């Protein structure tokens, strides 16, 4: 029982959120903000694997997000809607949307993970600032490629993902998007947590601490880096797919270095190498952005200022290197550290 406490708690929270959505107790604006929070949680925790645990400086996370967003959108539009960009060649009808939506998201994740190879392979030979430049380049490669493929809308972007969501709610009227966001948050956090908690995954931390020692003391650094980059970009891809469906419209301009920076800020705000920190800061940062919206342009004065203040007084981020269970040891007794 205690073993599954965290799982049960998470499911209870999910159920609560889903019911709130179902009954429309919250206005649509808050609902959308909550979905963005969920997506940001996935983005920041997956980037934390690279920037925090592995100690690399990846600043092209939005690129992987873009790949996932476009892959999922194109696939869903082609499969489930008649206004498909590819004509009717792969149209199988809207009634399958309910079952196949998560599958298309996972395919989007795989596509993003494959693009992650563009960063993973150079990372065998180079690291630090040079790898940071490569990640930046990959971000731009993805963005510019999409901009120049006219079939998928080029720089204008494309829309219509609402139809996919509508197709799902037509079948069974429950808040599908939020459900899938919650499900994929759970899956990705558990995957990341278990990966970095296993001795195999701690190879990532060994690379951060001393790469030469890791390489000589039997860690297959190339494979570990490959897995870390692909896992991280895969989760970003899934998050991107969900993002596209929440917005209903995507264009390459969304996935620039600005978006990458936003994700990076969340990672450093939460603390490098702390998953619970990433989750907390994703929530905090997204909410803060929304609360400060009335300030309009001054928001972008205040938020960087807050960051500067934070970095002055807590340079290691909110949680530093620690997890929530390290800060409150009492929690650990409650939650066995193996699950979730």
């Amino acid at each position, binding site marked *: 029982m205690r073993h599954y406490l965290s799982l049960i708690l998470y499911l209870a929270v999910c159920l609560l959120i889903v019911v709130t959505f179902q009954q429309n107790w919250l206005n649509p604006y808050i609902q959308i903000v909550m979905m963005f929070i969920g997506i940001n949680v996935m983005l920041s925790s997956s980037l934390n694997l690279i920037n925090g645990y592995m100690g690399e400086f990846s600043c092209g996370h939005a690129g992987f997000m873009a790949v996932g967003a476009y892959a999922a959108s194109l696939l869903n539009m082609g499969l489930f809607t008649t206004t498909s960009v590819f004509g009717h060649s792969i149209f199988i009808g809207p009634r399958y949307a309910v079952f196949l939506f998560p599958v298309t998201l996972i395919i989007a994740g795989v596509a993003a993970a494959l693009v992650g190879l563009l960063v993973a392979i150079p990372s065998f030979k180079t690291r630090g600032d040079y790898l940071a430049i490569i990640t930046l380049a990959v971000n731009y490669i993805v963005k510019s490629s999409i901009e120049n493929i006219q079939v998928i809308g080029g720089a204008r972007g494309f829309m219509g993902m609402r139809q996919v969501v509508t197709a799902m709610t037509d079948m069974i009227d429950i808040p599908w998007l939020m459900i899938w966001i919650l499900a994929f948050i759970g899956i990705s956090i558990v995957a990341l947590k278990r990966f970095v908690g*296993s001795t195999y995954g701690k190879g990532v931390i060994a690379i951060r601490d001393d790469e030469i020692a890791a390489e000589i*003391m039997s860690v297959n650094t190339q494979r570990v880096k490959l897995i870390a980059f692909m896992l991280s970009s895969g989760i970003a891809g899934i998050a991107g797919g969900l993002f596209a469906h929440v917005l209903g419209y995507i264009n390459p301009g969304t996935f620039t270095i600005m978006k990458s920076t936003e994700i990076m800020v969340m990672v450093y705000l939460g603390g490098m190498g702390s998953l619970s920190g990433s989750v907390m800061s994703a929530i905090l940062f997204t909410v803060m952005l929304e609360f400060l919206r009335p300030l309009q342009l001054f928001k972008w004065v205040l938020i960087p200022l807050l960051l500067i203040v934070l970095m002055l007084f807590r340079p290691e981020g909110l949680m530093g290197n620690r997890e929530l269970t390290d800060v409150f040891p009492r929690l650990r007794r409650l939650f066995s550290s193996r699950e979730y």
Partner: protein
Amino acid sequence: MPLLEFKQINHFFGGLQAVHNFNLTLESGELIGLIGPNGAGKTTIFNLMSGFYKPTQGDILFQENSITHLKPHQVTALGLARTFQNIRMWNSMTVLENLCISQHYRMGYSFMDAIFSTKTYHENEKAVVNLAMEILDILGLSSAANEYPKNLPYGLQRRVEIGRALTIKPSLLLLDEPAAGMNPSDIDKLIELIRWIRERFHLTIWLIEHQMKVVMSLCERLCVLDFGQIIAEGSPSDVKNNPRVISAYLGDEGADDAEN
């Protein structure tokens, strides 16, 4: 059957020849020392052996198989473990975790097992932790298992690093200046430790050392390197009186004095 064989190794860093026609054979069970003045190429030899550098020419055989073109982690997996001149522990992790990660090469599960938390994963993880604890127990370090290596006293850090090398279950252990920066009482303990682990684990040990006390009391055979070349080889007492060795360490005048 020789355990390790260097065949005509030459290694260049750009135009600088760091290792010059290096030939050496190590028999199983030996305890051999590699000494020489600073910059003689001792650590380069170790780095060539652990696969960190690829020799420009020549071949290295370990148990009669060429290891010249293997990656470092593959060389380690064959049973060739080493320590470093300046201690290289993974300092953000505990001693126990350090000793677990070094068993990476025989982790019997993939990352998918870890993510799905399968039975294979739990069994392997348990075996890894058990071995690490066993080694810590043997070295009398079990109380330090949950400490961070950087918080330990220097002598203990060395011990932990040797422990980490032992988790690889090596047949050949390379120690790169194990006594560097140690005080005399630590050195005595270290000499004892090296002797003891050699018996306990049936190891072949090859060490680089500047502390003559360590070299003279431990090694059965010495190999003296200068400018990447072997200038003398033999028992410690032979080497000690070899004029070429003395001149390498003390200059030509020193050699003259020794002869007179």
